[in-house]
């Protein structure tokens, strides 16, 4: 099981702040995103998205392990 979190415009677009997923063996962050799109029925194609794995920025090619916390969010605008 992995926990997936969404923030800001991504959270609003998906209509939820998080979802738990059964991990498919050998998944990457990109494949987790595809699973999220499948479950929610919402496409995030064309959105500017960043990803984090266990609260560290990662590329979408990053492998995912059971128990991970994955997050998707738009480019940051703090400061």
């Amino acid at each position, binding site marked *: 099981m992995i926990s997936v979190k969404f*923030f800001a*415009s991504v959270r609003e677009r998906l209509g939820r702040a998080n979802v738990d997923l059964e991990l498919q063996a050998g998944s990457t962050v990109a494949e987790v995103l595809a699973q999220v799109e499948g479950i929610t029925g919402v496409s995030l194609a064309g959105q*500017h998205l960043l990803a984090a794995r266990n*609260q*560290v920025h990662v*590329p979408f090619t990053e492998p995912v392990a059971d128990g991970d916390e994955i997050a998707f969010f*738009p*480019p*940051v*605008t703090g400061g």
Partner: protein
Amino acid sequence: MTVRVQQEAFHLGAELLAHAQPTAGAVVSFLGTVRDYSDAADILAMEIEHYPGMTERELERVAQEAQRRYDILDSLIIHRYGRLAPQDPIVLVAVWSLHRAAAFDACRYLIDVLKTSAPFWKKEITPAGARWVTDCPGCRAGTQHGHVHPDVLEEC
């Protein structure tokens, strides 16, 4: 090295006094505040969302990197979240060092890097409604680091 993420207001002078370094010959601080306008509209308020846990972790990572790169004695980062009004302070970065050059350089480094890596998102509340700020420094930084969804690289 101190990092704080909070809803409450803070006072620049009080924070600098509270973190004073006896051996420092210089302290440089940057205070970011809420503007009362954006590209197209007046701003009534600013709502700042963040990723609790990752935010603190990312700010600590940036502060450690500044400590490694520059000859500084200490640093302080305070970043607020929640609903803020125009002119409210959003972020404080302060750096103490023996001499001014390192403090200036490290302060600039800290604010520049945190703006492109710390997971905060601003939403402007205007008379016409609310909208997420989609400033592009974050897009560009993300793209450079290969973190942006590959489908949108060409749009950044």
